[in-house]
């Protein structure tokens, strides 16, 4: 493993968070502040025939009631402009917002919401993703043709995005195979479920608005407000107080404009705080339900010959950021394997469900679970050990992937090997226990990102970044990169972040991209300052610039450490003259070349910048009488390129593993015949507790990434949530001989599979 040495890592927000003095959005209190509540559709589909807010407006304590009539008449959406802030003519899922109220207390606001009279004419409910795509299915959006869209998205009726990944001759591959195995897997909808339910506070100053929001992506939130309320972006300031987790659920523009609109009408600040139920039903970001059909040809010696796949993804009622999901799911249905021919058809099906949107590694946990379960079934079919089968087929250095990308040196095979060692594969286990493996891959996301660094007169420095922190520690670790360039300590830097009026654009705490992209920006800014310091020191020490080095807070002549000047002294002089201020941005790594000539609806996901590779091995115990699965240990091995901050990186892996255990065994939304979620609470949608959590062994392998982030770092936060599900499923199958083909693999489903 390549790494920046030094394991010390102290969060700058650590004391704030352990003393309880750090403020999250819901903790904010402004003078004259009102409380906001939403009126939801509460039905999955219908046509609005009447909205009457008279009684709500007359309720004492109510300052404003806002509906579609109070905001610009336009539609928005990154891929398909298919949605509105407030429902106008149609409602398409239960959490669709019809009105917002601002009142003196949350209780009065809620009562006012209840007093809004809404008549909704029932419409057919599209409650099944496969039925959605059948010819003659009622349309979720009857006027879909009139919507604007982006990125050359290929869509037709309820199919919001069709992507295919087609390479090689699949029929010839099947003809050459000794066995062709065809299977079908189904994944239920899941949720990000951050422990902090989201909150938004909006306050107007003339025609400018300041919004405090629990968002992972403040710049996107700002753009959304500016677009939907028709304001210039510099009239919208988004500030993110401490963010209580996100996991993708708080990506994108969500409710900021609704609260801004109601605050404007109320002429007072307004605060929205979600209940846990609202956190489950309203956000247009939850993990998508899926149906995955895979058909793979394999020779008796274990060689893969071809794969045909069909993936249907639940888009929900609106498209959010899911336009790239079909292609991404297609890539995860292929996996990091040598596969000469593939034909994957992937679709994004509109339904009357809550919209899907990026939740930590969108599409990958489900698609990887299906793929890696399928791989074990293939191994079983030919009587080959699952580890040996993967070792035979896993991609090697210099391999060309199914989409035509040539892989730079990577650690994929080493991930598999190290995981097998860490979990102790091959040893004798009790009859009810077994080990399952799953491997996978995930792209790094190159994006524009910016940061400034300024020196203060005493030699301390401040990083002002557009990056956002949702708890991962990625922003907290940025000083390590600056310190490394400038011969200083991380503690010498403070950070200003999560305010759109201070730092430059960054795409936020999403896509595992903070170190990858903003790290690059910080390094670029630090390099500018490094040059300046070297020049100043060269003058002062009467030495050539090339002979100066920055070490331990000093600029000194190489080989003559006594000839040195403190960086603090240089900073002090600069503060009275030409200041030490720098900006950094830089060009993101370019996407590798691929051949997509036979594909339709390409969305840029068939070429991966600095791909990461990983293998998780799960040691499980199955209670044969009840179907209850206990995960005893997970070995999680990742090629994430260079590890900039080992403690932070390990924390991401450990958190991802536990999320994976939950996704594997417990987490799933149940949907009623009326299209509504039946278990929108933490009593019924259970998360992993500390008592459930397995032992986790983490290792990083592989070389420094090429075409990657600073020092060869790759994205790290999303991949660990991907392969644990399949590793557990394969462990269950190894114990019981039964394959569970629906997520989550609850005790009922395990028992049913065993007793089928």
């Amino acid at each position: 493993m390549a790494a920046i040495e030094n394991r010390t890592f102290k969060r700058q927000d650590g004391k704030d968070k352990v003393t309880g003095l750090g403020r999250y959005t819901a903790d904010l209190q402004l003078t004259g502040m009102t409380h906001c509540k939403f009126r939801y559709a509460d039905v999955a589909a219908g046509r609005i025939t009447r909205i009457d807010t008279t009684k709500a407006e007359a309720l004492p304590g109510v300052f404003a009631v806002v509906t579609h009539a109070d905001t610009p008449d336009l539609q928005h959406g990154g891929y398909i402009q298919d949605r509105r802030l407030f429902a106008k003519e149609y409602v398409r899922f239960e959490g669709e917002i019809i009105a917002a109220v601002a009142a003196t207390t949350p209780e009065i606001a809620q009562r006012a919401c209840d007093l809004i009279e809404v008549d909704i004419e029932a419409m057919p409910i599209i409650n099944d993703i496969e039925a959605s795509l059948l010819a003659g299915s009622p349309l979720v959006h009857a006027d879909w043709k009139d919507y604007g869209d982006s990125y050359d998205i290929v869509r037709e009726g309820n199919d919001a995005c069709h992507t295919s990944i087609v390479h090689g001759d699949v029929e010839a591959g099947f003809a050459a195979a000794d066995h062709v195995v065809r299977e079908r897997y189904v994944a239920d909808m899941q949720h990000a479920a951050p422990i902090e339910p989201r909150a938004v506070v909006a306050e107007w100053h003339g025609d400018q608005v300041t919004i405090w929001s629990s968002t992972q992506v403040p710049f996107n939130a700002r753009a959304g407000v500016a677009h939907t309320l028709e304001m210039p972006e510099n009239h919208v300031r988004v500030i993110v107080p401490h963010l209580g987790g996100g996991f993708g659920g708080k990506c994108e523009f969500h409710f900021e404009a609704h609260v801004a609109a109601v605050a404007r009408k109320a002429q007072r600040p307004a605060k929205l705080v979600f209940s846990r139920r609202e956190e489950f039903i309203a956000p247009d970001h939850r993990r998508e339900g899926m149906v995955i059909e895979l058909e793979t040809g394999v020779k008796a010696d274990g060689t893969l010959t071809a794969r045909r796949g069909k993936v249907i993804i639940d888009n929900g009622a609106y498209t959010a950021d899911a336009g790239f999901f079909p292609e991404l799911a297609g890539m995860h249905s292929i996996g990091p394997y040598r596969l000469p021919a593939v034909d994957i058809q992937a679709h994004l099906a509109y339904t009357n469900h809550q919209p899907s949107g990026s939740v930590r590694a969108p599409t990958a946990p489900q698609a990887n679970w299906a793929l890696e379960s399928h791989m074990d079934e293939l191994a079983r079919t030919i009587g080959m050990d699952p580890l040996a089968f993967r070792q035979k087929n896993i991609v090697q250095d210099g391999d060309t992937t199914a989409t035509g990308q040539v892989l730079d040196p990577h650690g994929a095979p080493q991930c598999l090997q190290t995981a097998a060692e860490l979990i102790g594969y091959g040893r004798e286990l009790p009859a009810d226990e077994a080990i399952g493996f799953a491997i996978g891959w995930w792209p790094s996301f190159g994006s524009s990102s910016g940061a400034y660094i300024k020196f203060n007169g005493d030699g301390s420095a401040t990083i002002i970044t557009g990056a956002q922190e949702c708890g991962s520690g990625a922003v907290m670790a940025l000083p390590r990169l600056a310190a490394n360039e400038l011969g200083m300590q991380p503690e010498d830097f403070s950070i200003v972040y999560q305010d759109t009026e201070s730092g430059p654009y960054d795409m936020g705490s999403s896509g595992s991209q903070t170190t990858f992209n903003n790290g690059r920006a910080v390094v670029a800014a630090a390099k500018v300052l490094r040059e300046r310091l070297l020049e100043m020191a060269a003058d002062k020490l009467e030495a050539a610039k090339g002979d100066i080095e920055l070490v331990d807070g000093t600029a000194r002549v190489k080989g003559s450490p006594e000839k040195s000047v403190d960086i603090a002294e240089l900073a002090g002089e600069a503060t009275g003259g030409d200041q030490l201020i720098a900006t950094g941005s830089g060009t993101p790594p370019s996407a590798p070349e691929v051949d997509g000539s036979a594909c339709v609806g390409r969305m840029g996901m068939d070429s991966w910048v600095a791909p990461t590779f990983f293998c998780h091995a799960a040691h499980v115990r199955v209670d044969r009488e009840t179907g209850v699965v206990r995960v005893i240990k997970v070995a999680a091995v990742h090629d994430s390129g260079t590890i900039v901050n080992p403690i932070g990186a390990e924390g991401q892996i450990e958190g991802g593993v536990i999320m994976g255990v939950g996704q594997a065994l417990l987490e799933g939304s149940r949907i009623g015949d009326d299209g509504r979620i039946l278990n929108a609470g933490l009593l019924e949608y259970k998360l992993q507790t500390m008592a459930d959590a397995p032992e986790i062994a983490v290792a990083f392998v592989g070389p420094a990434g090429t075409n990657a982030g600073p020092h060869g770092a790759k994205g790290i936060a999303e991949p660990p949530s991907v392969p644990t599900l399949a590793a557990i499923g394969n462990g269950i199958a190894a114990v019981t001989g039964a394959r569970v083909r629906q997520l989550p693999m609850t005790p009922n489903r395990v028992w049913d599979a065993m007793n089928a």
Partner: protein
Amino acid sequence: MSDKMIVKATVNGEECEALVEPRTLLVHMIRESLHLTGTHIGCDTTSCGACTVLLDGKPVKSCTILAVQANGREIATVEGLETAAGLSVVQEGFKEEHGLHCGYCTPGMMMTVTALLEENPDPTEDEIRKAISGNLCRCTGYVNIIKAVQYAAGKKEGAAA
């Protein structure tokens, strides 16, 4: 308005009074009347534990206790953990061992741990896992939380010896 009640309680060692409706939950009194917002709300079903405080030394989930039930009793919240001598060993443990990411569950988690170590100064890993299983964390995978508790237990033992 006339049905409001006065709740008198000792909060973090100080006598406090709050005027609340009988239906008011303890967590709302703590956050809105006493302005101690370190106690968080993550659900309303005692599932997550973000609102955990100590009532007469016992950890309780303040989202499902009425404020009036705290009348005449001692409440400890996260804001009371730090003293003039500095952070408590539990706070120090979470900070030093990277036992928090987003930090939202941390105050409730630390209150449960504080009570645990009062009762059992040298818990085994299993005892720690069991004791804190009522507090959910979505970020850390719990690994460093266990290390944080062990750090605190070690420090406490060191101080006692």
